[in-house]
């Protein structure tokens, strides 16, 4: 072989090996993972497909909201990762796992865990994110208790938190003439944000899709076969907490 053949071969091998082992192999493997049914032995669960697969299917506007999330570049400031304890303290951040001493939102039913590959099954692209300029959104679904308030947050973040650096997504909302009593969806804007008399601000189709996506974000389902209570049963959303609520909330932390 001529020297330049060795050179080319070297280039191909040096790059081809990691390409195959690190990229193509795991990608193909991850793509072929199927949703896992809960409790196959359970007669009832076999006939309740909407409750009995992990992860549960996503419906409606969620996929469109995923696209809006991409278009607006949300993933450049927000992650969707709860790291395990050895890699960070994400599970102890207020609200990131849906709990905390000052937490007033809904309680996730089980102890919120770190994220796993299966949580993102079926997403065309998992927006794990690159930076936390804003808070993690892995469990944002639990934090949004009032859609109208969340829309106001997106419309004008500084009116909710004066210190926020999030862009004001005014372009996702429409200013229109109020019709009769006005829309149920109209934002309750006050002060200088309030529209002129006879007008109202309502979320556009994009804003509604984004909201649908954000509300779908929760990584708290019991993993099938994990041995946790409920892991072999149906209806993960209503199964009891794996640990007493107090301990899970970590109130023992000084």
């Amino acid at each position, binding site marked *: 072989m001529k020297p*330049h053949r060795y050179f080319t071969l*070297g*280039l191909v091998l040096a*790059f081809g*090996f*990691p*390409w195959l082992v*690190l*990229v*193509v192999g*795991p*990608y193909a493997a*991850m*793509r072929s*993972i199927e949703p896992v049914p809960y409790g196959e032995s359970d007669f009832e669960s076999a006939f309740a497909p909407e409750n009995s697969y992990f992860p549960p299917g996503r419906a409606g506007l969620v996929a469109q909201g995923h696209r809006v999330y*991409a*278009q607006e*570049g*949300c993933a*450049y400031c927000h*992650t969707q*990762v709860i*790291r*395990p304890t*050895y*890699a*960070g*303290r994400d599970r*102890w*951040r*207020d609200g990131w796992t849906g709990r905390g001493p*000052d937490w007033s939102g809904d309680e996730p039913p089980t102890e919120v865990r*770190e994220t*796993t*590959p299966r949580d*993102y*099954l*079926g*997403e*065309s*692209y*998992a*927006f*794990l*994110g*690159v*930076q*936390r*300029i*804003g*808070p993690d959104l892995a469990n944002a679904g639990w934090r949004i208790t009032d859609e109208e308030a969340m829309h106001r947050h997106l419309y004008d973040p500084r009116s909710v938190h004066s210190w*926020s*650096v999030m*862009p*004001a*997504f*005014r*372009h996702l909302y429409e200013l229109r003439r109020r019709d009769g009593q006005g829309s149920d969806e109209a934002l309750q804007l006050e002060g200088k944000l309030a529209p002129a008399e006879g007008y109202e601000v309502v979320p556009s189709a994009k804003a509604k899709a984004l909201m649908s996506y954000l509300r779908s974000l929760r990584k708290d389902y019991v993993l099938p076969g994990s041995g946790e209570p409920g892991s072999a049963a149906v209806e993960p959303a209503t199964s009891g907490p794996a640990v007493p609520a107090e301990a899970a909330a*970590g109130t023992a*932390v000084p």
Partner: protein
Amino acid sequence: METKEAIIANLREEHAEALARAESDRSVRLPVLFFFTNGLLWLLGSSLLGFVASMKLHNPDFLGDAAWLAYGRIHPASTNAFLYGWVFQAGLGAALWIMARLCRARLSGIGVLLTAGHVWNIAVTIGVAAILLGEGTSFPWLDFPAFLWPVLLLTYAVMAAHLLVLYRARRSEEVFISQYYLIAAALWFPWAYLTANLLLHVFPGAGVMSAAVNAWYVGTVLLLWAAPVGLGTAYYLIPKIVGKSIYSYQLALAGFWMLAMLGGWTGVQSLKGGPLPAWIPAVSGTATIFLLIPMIAVAINLHRTVKGNHHLVNYSPTLRFATFGAVAFNLLIVTGALLSLFSLGRVTQFTYAESAVHFIGLYSFFTMTLFGAIYFIVPRLVQCEWRSGGWIRFHFWFSAYGSTAVVAALFLAGVSQGIDQARPYEGFRGSVEVSSAYLVGRSLGWVFIFLSNLMFFFHILLMVFRLGRRSGQATLLHEMEKELSAHGVNA
């Protein structure tokens, strides 16, 4: 004793050499100038976008709340304009010229190359506009809408093929280390780009692995495109200016193959602790740490080559920029290795510190080295010298100061943000406020970068229009005779 005939034969040979050099220079003149000037225009544009993006993070209502100026759009627009507009074009321009020189080869038929260059620029323009208009994909460094990647891949292939044509037509037996680096980069990038785009756009649906492939692509562009092109350029320029050959050819080869074997594993460490099979980020992080070995090989080699001639950085703009770049390469690898550690990474992961590493790689190292190359190459293409040493000094100091300020601000902001976010049961406010002051510093850094590039763009435009100095003497940063006599040395 040399005979008269031998001397004449020698002179003839030198003359033939000079003619061949001039011919190969002339054959690549148009495409190289095309890539440099277009690249610099993109650099200027992306500096402006980068400045606005930076302002938005401490002053979110800066320039109002127009949709196309929101951080989520202007930040990826700036990054992609910088990467595909400047980094690739500048790299290809320098690679073409160096390859033509080292191969003593001529490029015929530049029409195809120039056409590809035009298509590339149009595609990048459409891509950046699409991101600003809200059609981006939010795949880091692959933000252009899906229909553009085949165009970019094809035009890149055409441009890189010209490098291979030059290499195949080489007239010298010797193969230089720069050629290794440039050929390797030319071949690896389309492979990585094709893989990433096929997997993300054509075969989507792999959930977390899509993010991992994206992170791998970022690592690959950094270490298997920017690094080899930057190092190949430095390995050409530095010995040339110093007038010595490379200290150790064996060491250079060892460094090259180490980078080649490790670079393809890197990138995914940015997702350590993420919902991936844990071995993937672990392997990536390990490879990033092992990169310290080729870094040491390169550092020793370049340092030994310059040894005893360090004072030349006072005179040669090329050497000054290239030295800055070579030092920044070490910083890139060292900071990359540090952030790959779990101990430090748990604080710096997902903070500004990670973008500091990318900034070092693409700006402090790659861009500064390429500035050095442009200062070397352009006078040889347009037959006139740079207008003013003062302007070059301005360019150097504003770039050096600006990029260092950005890097320092990003690290400080990142670490303070990371420490705040590691506090249990605290709200998010602290991490925003604690990093805010550093981000003001970063915006200032961007102002310096923008001004320096504005000056440089103006300078290169004068050169392209042949308005440089008509002189046989290269423009130096300082007049050498004056300086030396001031120090009591007879020039």
